[in-house]
């Protein structure tokens, strides 16, 4: 089961090339070109593991999108991409629950490493949830 990544950025060429490269590395990539589109795709596709989200976009910007996404799919990790080297936005994002942030132009290997970490974390979370649910059921038997 390959990792599903949702790529959200308003720069179309960037998204296209990134998609190609990530696909070559055996990731399944979904693309969106705006915050709203990304949110929609996230809601539609329940299998998204990681969202790679550009901070500055017209319309719904990255921070807002992040907020909504975390509401919609809390377990999906979000990696923020920023072209602006503004530490403030990154910190704000992380406070809102982003997994990490990277600055554009980003090194693909670095990005891949982060994606893997995010997926690992998500898997861990999911596993714990399943465990807890199992425990719950098990303990509910009450004997």
């Amino acid at each position, binding site marked *: 089961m390959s990792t599903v990544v949702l790529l959200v950025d308003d*720069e179309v*060429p*960037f998204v296209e*090339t*990134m998609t*190609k*490269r990530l696909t*070559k590395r055996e990731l399944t990539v979904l693309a969106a070109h705006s915050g709203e589109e990304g949110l929609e795709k996230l809601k539609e596709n329940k299998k998204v593991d990681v969202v790679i989200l550009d901070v*500055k976009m017209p319309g719904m910007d990255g921070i807002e999108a992040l907020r909504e996404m975390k509401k919609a799919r809390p377990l999906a990790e979000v990696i923020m991409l920023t*072209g*602006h*080297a*503004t530490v403030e936005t990154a910190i704000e994002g992380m406070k809102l629950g982003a997994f990490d942030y990277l*600055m*554009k*132009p*980003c*090194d*693909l290997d670095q990005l891949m490493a982060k994606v893997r970490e995010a997926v690992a974390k998500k898997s861990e979370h999911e596993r714990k949830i399943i465990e807890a649910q199992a425990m719950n059921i098990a303990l509910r038997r009450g004997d």
Partner: protein
Amino acid sequence: MDDAQYYRQLRRNIVLVVIAVSITPMLLIGAITGYEFHISYYAKVLAHLQELVEKHNQNLDGFLNERQVNIRFLGRAFGYEQLADESRLEALLQMLQEEHHGVFVDLGLVDEKGIQVAYAGPFKLAQADYADAEWFREAMKSPSYISGVFLGLRGLPHFIVTVKIQEDDKTWILRSTIDFVAFNTLVENFQLGETGLAYIVNSKGEFQTRPRQDPVLIRETYEAFLEDRPLEEETFTIAEGHSERIQKVWKQDTGADRVAIIEKRSLAGRRYLCVMTSLKGGEWILVYQQEARDAFSELYYNRNIAILIMVLGSVAVVFAAIVLSRRMVFFIAQADREKEMMNEQVIEAGKLASVGELAAGIAHEINNPVAIMVEEAGWVEDLLEEEDLKGAENLEELQRALKQIRTQGARCKEITHKLLSFARRTDPRVQTVSINELVQEVVGLSEQKARFGNVKISLSLSERLLPVKAAPSEIQQVLMNLINNAIDAIDKKGGEVEVTTRGDGDLVVIDVADDGQGIPKSNLQRIFDPFFTTKPVGKGTGLGLSICYGIVKKMGGEITVNSAVDVGTTFHVYIPAADGEEAEDRA
């Protein structure tokens, strides 16, 4: 040059205003008080003159009356018989002369027919016949009479005092001659100032005394005065081309106590004051004249002094105004220059700020395209791996080129990152920090780089260093920049970087010294300019020191540098210590 002209005009305006404001009141005061003083002084002088003349007039009148009284007494005390006795007459004359200091010249008894029946005196006038004499006729008309001055039988100017006695059926006259010289002297002695003189004329303008100088008034004036006709300002043409003029009638009282004060311009053009009073019951006029210049000499003297003072004062005012305006304009020009400099500084700062914002905007925009480029290059790299191009000639070259694209992309990122740091307003996360700790931190971070460049970093940190209120990240940035620059300045041979901290009054001082290549004098001025760098392409952005400068300045500190080529460079950073706190103690 507009400026020079502007300042010249400003100077001129100041001078004019100061002069106008200073001189106008002075002139006004001078004019007004001068005028008032002038008027009142004039009035006083004239009043004074009038009084004096009237007093003199009284004296003269008194003198004449007394003579009359003397003679009348004689006439009544001694009868005709006794007076006809010449020896008796002589004795009486003698007594008179003794009593009155020779004023009486002679005594004579004249009968009603005009024959002098008895005579005592120096002249041979016994039995003289005065029947046709005018004085005899007049004397017979009134009880007592004083004649005008006339030559008479003796051929000398004199005047007589007579008294008419009616005894039983006889009428006779006792007469006496008054010493003209004595009388003249009496009048002449009245002198005020240098040009004042007095004389007596009768109603016909005939002189009764001898004036010392030529009098100014003319007969028409005397006549008019005695007849109480109003005197007017009029011009009298004396002869062809010569005219005199009554300039002004200051005063004219009519009646028994008539007095007139007039101002007349003489033939020679001089102004005279003339005072006239009437004597002898209106038959004579006592005239006093004085040159106006003389009478008002004090007034003119004071006026001249006042004018002199005003002139000197005005000159002083003008002089002071010019000097003052010069100095003021000098200072104004200086202030203007400073203001311009400040304006330029403000503009510079503004420019810098907008450059900063521009830079920030550009940085934002650049990162996106650069990211795309780098991605594309990476993609091509990925594709190259897939294709079976092992045999391709240009494979290595393609890979190298693509790597280069990525390197440059990373470099772009570095640059924009630093640019944005420069443009960004530093966050005010100010704390109380210990400089020594921060120095040690940063030096620790740089140790790797130092070792690699064969550079030894030594520390010399003062123990009692005052704490500083600053954002630690900013201090770190400054230290990082300076230390890295120092390390970079040292070439492969190696060298030493020395970091010192010390206190200097209110300031905390950090010195970063290296023994590297030094900075040439021509560059020293520019090292803090943004984008100025001497490092080879790719090694430096030229923003480090300008960022340091901005940070230090913002904290209220100072950053300076000494350097000598091939000897080394030392940077000094002065930071104001936090107020009111004591020096930290190092354990």
